[in-house]
């Protein structure tokens, strides 16, 4: 009898040894929506080292399609464990049942420096107090000026009001023949004119969607004001200092906008963080050892303060995940200062304390200041209006007035009615 025990024990020990790692080894998928997946891959190697029982499969996706794919997968219970999303998708996806509520996980396990340290958290909540995403990286837009072009046009001071900006743009065209403020005015789901119009309205005391004291969502602007701002942006095209071709460009990073900037043939632009970084890097590679002519500055203002949106990406956990604990560990890692310091250096963490620790090089000082003025989308996203629908309609209304199909008054009324219609759903 005694002779059989060692082999038996050996067998049991072996079995235990084989089974336990298999039980502990967990695989999760992380879907990342930007083209620089290489950075994330390196970071995941780091993560797996720190968490030996977890393996992460990296899925990549095109940003434009990421949300729709998740919505489809929500309908059938599939999708990645952790997903890389835009700020403004989180609430919709939560309501659609694609993401799991994170209240418990944050309360029991914590994330970052605490939930209150995260920016724009109001966009992650539904009406019942559940929230569905953790803000991950943040960015905003700011003005970018080419010092050399401004000097050549005799402009000494950085524009501060919207009128200043238009005058400067005009002057650049008149005195140097170069493009003044070249911005995209085209249509599409991710158009830029939406941002430009909102920046103007917000800095002048208006807003498309607001919340009144009783908590009801209302329009915070008049059709006349909408028309006025449309007319303002259109004047750049009509007066010629923004080329008409830009009516057909919708996104900032297209070569039609970036290339003239890089060649010094345009004086003023408005750019999101990452496009600006890419512009600077391109320019430096084309002009080695020369001083950078670009500097950034806050957006102009009307009667109020300069205001832009606080944009960014969030991380969400799939409602159908089988590994919520492992998924949460990944989320915690991706929102740690270590991660941003080591792997995700060029991005800004969506946490106030970490943002304060970020080093802004001289050409990025404007963005640093702009972050203090940036506001979250707030009622636009938390209200019943579909933000993407308003986004798209703004470009459509603006465009049809710009090509003369309707008057600016009619276009302003069209957008106003559209927003009012969206808000009826509450």
């Amino acid at each position: 009898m005694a002779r059989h025990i060692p082999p038996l024990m050996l067998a049991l020990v072996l079995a235990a040894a084989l089974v336990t790692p298999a039980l502990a080894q967990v695989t999760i998928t992380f879907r990342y929506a930007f083209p620089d997946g290489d950075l994330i891959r390196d970071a995941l190697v780091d993560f797996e080292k720190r968490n030996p029982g977890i393996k992460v499969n990296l899925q990549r996706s095109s940003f434009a399609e990421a949300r729709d794919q998740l919505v489809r997968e929500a309908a059938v219970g599939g999708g990645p464990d952790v997903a890389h999303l835009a700020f403004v998708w989180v609430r919709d996806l939560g309501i659609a049942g694609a993401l799991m509520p994170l209240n418990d996980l944050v309360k029991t396990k914590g994330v970052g420096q605490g939930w209150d340290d995260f920016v724009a958290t109001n966009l992650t909540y539904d009406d019942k107090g559940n929230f569905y995403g953790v803000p991950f990286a943040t960015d905003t837009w700011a003005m970018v000026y080419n010092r050399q072009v401004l000097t050549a046009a005799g402009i000494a001071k950085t524009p501060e009001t919207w009128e200043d900006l238009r005058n400067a743009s005009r002057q650049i065209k008149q005195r140097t023949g170069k493009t003044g403020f070249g911005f995209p005015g085209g249509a599409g789901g991710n158009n830029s004119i939406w941002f430009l119009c909102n920046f103007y309205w917000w800095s002048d005391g208006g807003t498309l969607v607001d919340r009144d004291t009783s908590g009801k969502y209302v329009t915070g602007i008049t059709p006349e004001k909408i028309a006025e701002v449309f007319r303002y942006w259109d004047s750049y095209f009509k007066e010629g200092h923004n080329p008409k071709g830009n009516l057909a460009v919708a996104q900032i990073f297209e070569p039609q906008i970036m290339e003239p900037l890089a060649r010094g043939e345009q004086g003023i632009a408005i750019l999101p963080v990452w496009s600006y970084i890419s512009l600077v890097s391109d320019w430096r590679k084309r002009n080695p050892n020369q001083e950078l002519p670009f500097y950034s500055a806050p957006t102009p203002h009307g009667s109020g303060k300069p205001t832009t949106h606080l944009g960014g990406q969030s991380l969400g956990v799939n409602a159908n995940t089988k590994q919520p604990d492992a998924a949460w560990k990944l989320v915690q890692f991706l929102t740690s200062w270590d991660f941003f310091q080591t792997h995700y250096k060029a991005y800004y963490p969506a946490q106030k304390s970490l943002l304060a620790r970020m080093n802004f090089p001289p050409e990025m000082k404007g963005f640093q200041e702009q972050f203090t003025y940036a506001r979250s989308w707030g009622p636009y996203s938390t209200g019943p209006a579909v933000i993407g629908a308003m986004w798209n309609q703004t470009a459509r209304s603006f465009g049809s007035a710009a090509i003369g199909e309707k008057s600016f008054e009619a276009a302003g009324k069209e957008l106003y009615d559209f927003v009012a219609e969206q808000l009826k759903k509450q």
Partner: protein
Amino acid sequence: MIRTPAERSTAAAGPATRSCIVTGVRPSRVRRGLQDLLVLAVLGVVWAFMLGPAAWIFYSSLQTNETLFSGGMGGFTLGNYAKIFRTGFRVFLFNSLVICAAAVVISTFVSVLAAYVFSRKPFRLRRLLFSSVLSGQLFPWIILVTPLFILFSRVGLLNSYPGIIFCYSAIALPFSVYLLVGYLQSIPHSLDEAARIDGATQYQVIWKIVFPIMLPGIVATTTYAFLLCWSEYLLALAFLSEEHMKTLPLGLYSFFGQDTADWGAIMAASAVTTLPTLVLFLPLQRRLASGLTAGAVKQ
């Protein structure tokens, strides 16, 4: 009919001389020289228009991102190709080849069977059924994607070869049948009738007699179907979310970000997407021509 000496000599002239009659110019030396010049000039314009943009794509794929749009000559690099293959393009290429080839084989096989019956066998409801085949082409594809996704995920066919191959076969079927029917119309019935009299079964007639003659038509249909599946994006996007299953178009689109795009990678990806189809076409392009030919000949 009385022929003048001029007519007689024209009739007796070689094909080259006779064919130039189609353009209506008398074959004098100078005239011909000018005519050549004109035709070749137009041909040159056509070549420039067709090839120019594609040449720019290929040229750009060898540039760095910073110099791609600058119009400069600097920055030659193979880095873009290295990048796309490092991020999985080899797998995407393999997937596209397997999926499209399988879908085309299945759809061609099925459409040969159906086309034979449509063109050779007068049966009741033939008209109705033939029209109904085309009914699939009526819909804009984007409204098909969402329900198909739901259906296929319920049967567990997402992220799998069988699922997407089935879809692509279904997409290629309607016009494959259409083209093959048109082709079969020009092949005389007498051939298969003779074979039947000799005692062949229906199936033998199809595969041993008709299929070989139809081969050029089948090559043509197969090529059209392949190209259709090769650049298909909407269904692949919905069905294939895991990296190891993706096809080339998905790989290409993944280089578009929110605020930036990796232009060099996009150009390299485009070159890699275009080249295999060219390689496939090269040996087939002769067959392609004769395949389409008989489909247009009317008795």
